[in-house]
């Protein structure tokens, strides 16, 4: 009985981990190529959720699932073009200050437009319900989230691994000077990466809107965990981030089982432990220009 129950918590933890994954991957991608730790990444998640609540009555949840990430991706494009682009070269502290400021502006803007109270929103009727496998219980909606998230992760991996676009991005991560010497401008690639990353964050926001409070601080809450996931996984490592997200989910699930008050603290403890033992993260790549 207890063993089955622990297994259930582990499986549930994997589902929790997936929630961080889409955000953490975008965070990692923008950092790897542009050298910017995007503290505004949580804001794109929150805006995605708010857009979903605003759009769903008009075009349905299915429509919002597509429209909201597209709209936020466009917003990301504008921000990359006019703001982020100026900071790739500079002192990393400037990029941090910029994105930290953007995050605060976005959170306060949401508060001014939509109010501080959580916006009412629920799971669409066609996704409600539970799935039972043996004695294990799953929310049907969470399984749907899992499927969409896994499809995105796989798609992103194929894009980076199998296409010429991905080859340039990976080369740009390792050695931008060489890419430039070959006559390839990284600018359009950087724009595309930001669009993809912010779009994924908005997709995560859309998918979480039915099961978590849609309120202005939701971006800041998730960003902290996504950041921890990236650090544990190792900057620049795709599968490191995936693995870290799942580990963080499982650690949270098991701590909730064993000692609830430490549920959140355990994740930070894990990060400290990983940084002590493997300062580069689990699978952090050696990127010469960041050393």
């Amino acid at each position, binding site marked *: 009985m207890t063993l089955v129950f622990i297994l259930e918590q582990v499986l*549930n933890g994997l589902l929790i981990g997936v929630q961080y994954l889409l955000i953490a991957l975008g965070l990692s991608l923008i950092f790897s190529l542009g*050298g910017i730790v995007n503290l505004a990444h949580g804001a794109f998640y929150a805006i995605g959720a708010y857009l979903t609540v605003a759009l769903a009555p008009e075009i349905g949840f299915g429509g919002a699932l597509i429209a909201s990430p597209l709209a936020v991706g466009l917003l990301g494009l504008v921000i990359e073009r006019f703001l982020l682009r100026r900071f790739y*070269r500079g002192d990393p502290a400037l990029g941090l200050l910029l994105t930290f400021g953007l995050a605060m502006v976005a959170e306060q803007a949401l508060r001014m437009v939509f109010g501080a109270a959580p916006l009412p929103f629920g799971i669409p009727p066609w996704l409600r319900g539970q799935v039972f496998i043996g004695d294990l219980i799953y929310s049907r909606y*969470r399984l749907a989230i899992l499927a969409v998230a896994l499809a995105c992760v796989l798609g992103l991996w194929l894009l980076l691994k199998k296409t010429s676009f991905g080859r340039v991005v990976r080369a740009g991560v390792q050695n931008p000077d060489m890419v430039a010497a070959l006559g390839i401008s990284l600018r359009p690639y950087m724009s595309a990466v930001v669009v993809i990353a912010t779009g994924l964050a908005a997709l995560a926001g859309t998918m979480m809107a*039915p099961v978590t409070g849609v*309120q202005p601080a939701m971006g800041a809450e998730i960003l902290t965990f996504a950041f921890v996931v990236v650090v544990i996984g190792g900057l620049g490592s795709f599968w490191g981030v995936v693995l870290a997200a799942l580990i963080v989910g499982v650690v949270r699930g098991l701590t*909730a089982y064993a000692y609830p008050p430490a549920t959140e603290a355990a994740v930070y403890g894990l990060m400290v432990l990983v940084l002590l033992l493997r300062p580069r993260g689990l699978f952090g790549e050696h990127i010469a220009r960041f050393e």
Partner: protein
Amino acid sequence: MSQFGDSISRRSLLRAGGAAILAPALAAPALAQGQGDVIRIGHLTPRTGFLGPLGEFAVQAATLAVEEINAAGGINGRKVELLSEDSVNPQTASAKAERMVQRDKVACLVGEINSASALAISQVAMREKTLFINTGANSDALRGADCKRYMFHVEAQNTMMVRAAGRALLEKGLVKGKKVYALTADYAFGHDLLKQAKKFLAANDATIAGEDLIPTELTDFSPFLLKIRQARPDVVICNLAGAQITNFLKQYSEFGLPFPVAGFGFDTALAWGAGPGNFLGTWPVIWHHMVEAPSAQKFVAAFKAKYKRPPENQAWGDYTATKIVASAMNTLKSTDSTKIVEYLEGGAKFDIHKGREGYFRPWDHELMQEMYAITALPADKVKNPYDIFSSTAPLPGPGDSLEVLATTKDENACAFPA
């Protein structure tokens, strides 16, 4: 082309990133260099963080109250000015309270939701001999061991919340001989509420099947829902706070667990935020927008006209406290805090936008008042996003003393420090 910096240190990025995430919100200075002939009321309440959704109602309600007071001629012919700020956390709350009293010369302080911040403000109030009316902090300790001569409580103490909900739960047969699973917010308010809840449950033959302390920043309840499912309790008791309640309701409904839900702490805005079909259970409230008293409905209408949504219980607290302050100052023709304290201790009665008038108990400064227990309506009976529950008649009933829900002197002794 080398558009990317080549000397970025990964470590410095990590360090700076971590610092930025953890950096506390910067306090914005109050811009209050006003005219001499106004009476200032200092209003402090959390406007960001997990209590932010309630703080917004508090600010709107206090603003509305001051507008109405000024429209009716102000206080002793002087205009009232509201200085409203985000109290953030106990340290910031204390610093801002001190600045409001010393620099802005506010006549009194009103507000707060977080019990720890309310305690910090009460220490400033005591030092400065300035009236502080607590509008949202529930901990019994604020009325007992930590009570202060200059602090009054419009908000109900936890014991009153527990006993109000408890009466409704006893009637529904959800307490006697039942197994209870309790989820509790892991900070001062939750700990205190859990203590009072346990006293009530033990006194009524309920047993605890499980209890978990939930960190306030936690947003995913699924691990706890699985634990509850395994424990198979007769009833799930929520002693949660702020945004936690919204997340819990959404996810409890997502997992479709069959156990009845009840709570001893609650705020209506958080149920509104859970979305259609997600609100369930029986909860205590100090006030709600369907209270029938004429002055309550007048407040609801004015609030709706100004803010396009009904007020909830936190709005009631700040609106009522501000009105009480104005009424006391007008009656006394003075803004002197010490005189107001004596007046309030003297048992003055106020229209508190409920059926019966309220008064402060002299020995612990708690407002004696009616409470309500609300129960979620089934989804097919819900007509709009706000009227999502039915309410009991006011508690205690018309025949009972207003004091029966509150702690007695023996239960929660208060000795005002000199």
